[in-house]
């Protein structure tokens, strides 16, 4: 055991006689993203209509200091921050898994219709019955339905180029039309209760869906790390992956299930946040280098993106609050167009 030495560019972690080999760059990149996330979270607690310093806001979060500060931070900003962190992390994770399993950087919950499906079903639950658990459950069902439709109609993912994505676009269009249909039929108060799902906003963040999302994230993130090891092999052709002992179909289904659960529950909290799931894994890949599938780093990058976008939406055009979904769409849109038009040979994620 003492003779083990880490190869160049990796770090060897040891606990007793168990060892884990971590790529150094990916570990460093993940740490960097985590540090940035902590800074962004502190900024998000401090700035707003009433600006506090970082230390007073931290104290207020713990219930110390001025009573009005405590009120602002604990009841307004902390739940919002928690929702932003959870939604961003879930979307980043979901995007990373989908992109890798479909071998296509454009395959994200937004483009393959999962977001639209979850939105349609969540709106259905709000327009129909109004118990607080229902939107999360329905969003999950909707996400699974849309994913199954896209996956089934396209005849699988990852082997047929862009077909999965465009079939997903079609599924998403139908789901979006159904959402509009329900919003037209619904009485006005039910329709306005469903409105946050139309643009993607952290303004109304019911506590139960956030808690559900956090619990799901706690379960899905470790599972994703396990799946990611096999998913990394799937970047090779299916035949090669099979030869290396990876069951391509099973791994894809597992990754798809994890992506659907995280994306569906995230949509139930914040609505479809445009392009977070596209940009976050890309940023994570840039930071962590090409080795491995950066699921943890993608989750961190997604959380960072949503927290920063929410902060910008609250403060830049104050007193008007720009919904966070619009901020991420406007920032991510040009990037998506550039990605599509870049004439470089396609890299699979």
């Amino acid at each position, binding site marked *: 055991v003492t003779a083990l030495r880490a190869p160049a560019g990796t770090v060897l972690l040891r606990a007793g006689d168990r060892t884990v080999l971590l790529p150094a760059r990916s570990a460093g990149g993940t740490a960097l993203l985590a540090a940035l996330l902590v800074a962004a979270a502190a900024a998000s607690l401090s700035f707003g209509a009433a600006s506090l310093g970082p230390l007073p806001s931290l104290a207020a979060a713990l219930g110390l200091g001025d009573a009005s500060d405590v009120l602002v931070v604990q009841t307004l900003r902390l739940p919002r921050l928690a929702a932003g962190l959870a939604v961003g992390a879930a979307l980043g994770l979901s995007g990373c898994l989908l992109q890798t399993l479909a071998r296509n950087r*454009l395959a994200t919950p937004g*483009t393959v219709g999962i977001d639209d499906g979850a939105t349609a079903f969540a709106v259905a639950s709000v327009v129909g019955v109004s118990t607080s658990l229902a939107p999360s459950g329905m969003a999950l069902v909707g996400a699974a339905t849309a994913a199954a439709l896209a996956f089934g*109609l*396209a*005849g699988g993912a990852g082997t047929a*180029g*862009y*077909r999965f*994505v*465009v*079939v997903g*676009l*079609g*599924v998403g*269009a*139908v789901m*979006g*039309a*159904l959402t*509009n*249909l329900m919003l*037209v*039929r619904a009485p006005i108060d039910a329709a306005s209760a469903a409105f946050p799902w139309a*643009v993607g906003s952290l303004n109304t963040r019911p506590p139960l869906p956030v808690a559900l999302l956090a619990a799901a994230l706690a379960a899905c993130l470790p599972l994703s790390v396990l799946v990611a090891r096999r998913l990394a092999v799937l970047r090779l052709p299916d035949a090669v992956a099979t030869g290396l002992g990876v069951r391509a179909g099973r791994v894809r289904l597992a990754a798809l299930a994890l992506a659907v659960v995280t994306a569906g529950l995230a949509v139930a909290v914040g609505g479809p946040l*445009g*392009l977070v799931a596209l940009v976050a894994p890309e940023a994570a890949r840039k930071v962590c280098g090409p080795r491995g599938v950066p699921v943890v780093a993608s989750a961190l990058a997604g959380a960072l993106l949503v927290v920063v976008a929410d902060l910008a939406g609250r403060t830049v*055009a104050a007193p*008007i609050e*720009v*919904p966070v*979904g*619009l901020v991420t*769409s*406007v920032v991510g*849109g*040009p990037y*998506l*167009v550039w990605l*599509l*038009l870049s*004439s470089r040979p396609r890299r699979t994620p």
Partner: protein
Amino acid sequence: VLVQDRPDIRARPAPVRPRRAWRRVLPPLALVLLLAVLASLLVGSGQVGPGRALRVLLGGSDEEARFAVLQLRWPRTIVATVVGAALGAAGAVLQAAARNPLAEPGLLGVSAGASTAVVVVIALGGSVATLGPHVAVLGALLGCLAALGAARLQGVGDDPVRLVLAGAALTGLLGSLTSVLLLLDRRTADEVRFWTVGAVAGRDLSVLSGVMPALLLGALLVVLVARPLAALALGEQVAAGLGARPGLARLGAVASVALLVGGATAAAGPIGFVGLVVPFCARALVGPDLRRVLLPSVLLGPVMVLVADVVSRLAVRPYEMPLGVITALIGAPVLVLVVRARRVPTL
């Protein structure tokens, strides 16, 4: 090696058809269009049923029914017919120019370009009342150029499906820009709701007279570019050999699509998927030649918009539904159908 020496390559004799045989589909299509117009006049979400409406058409003197048919349904029927014809023709031309069966003005962001241009101008201080269709046409032109630029950049022979993704990205981007503008400016939001959701309800004929010059000019251009574009389907070099000028033909096609879609959007707002479904059906009827596809498309476009409009009146009575929702419900399955084909055909 001559083809004759290769027994594994067998020429399949083309079915010999009379030159004009394809025109046989036109009378039935015209009949269908007539029925759609009639349905649009007779059916409504309110109190006036088909029976009362029919009596008005036959010269009855029922005041309420007369108002509903002549003042409410007649204008929107005409607007839907004109808009449908423009969108159908624009779809056929754009698909021929991009050589891509998925190139649809709504999917590629041409309609989004038109409505975003209108929103920007109104946000800068313009008013809906004084706004001509030229703003929408200009926006459509920009959207069109962006989409075809994407088509060129992606190169010929690449996956045709990518163009749709570029268009979806452009549409999403323009949509969120529009939303931000609307959010920052309540007055614009009030005036503009009209432009962001496609509908033919409540349009009167004066809207049409404003956009008619753009539509007629677009139609003229379509007639001019149809033959060179059909030659272009054989490939750039063959087309040049046949005496067509590919660059000029594409430019004409882009201009005509911008005029048609811009005019249609100015009249009824963005209506998606018409330009996808209609040429798809027309090609199924008469084959891929653009010169043959055009007339059936012009007839089928209004049929689709009228049918969608009638459904939008009946689906959620007594309310009405946005027209774009219905066309999306019809169109998205067709999109899936096209993409599911084993090899997405290039036109």
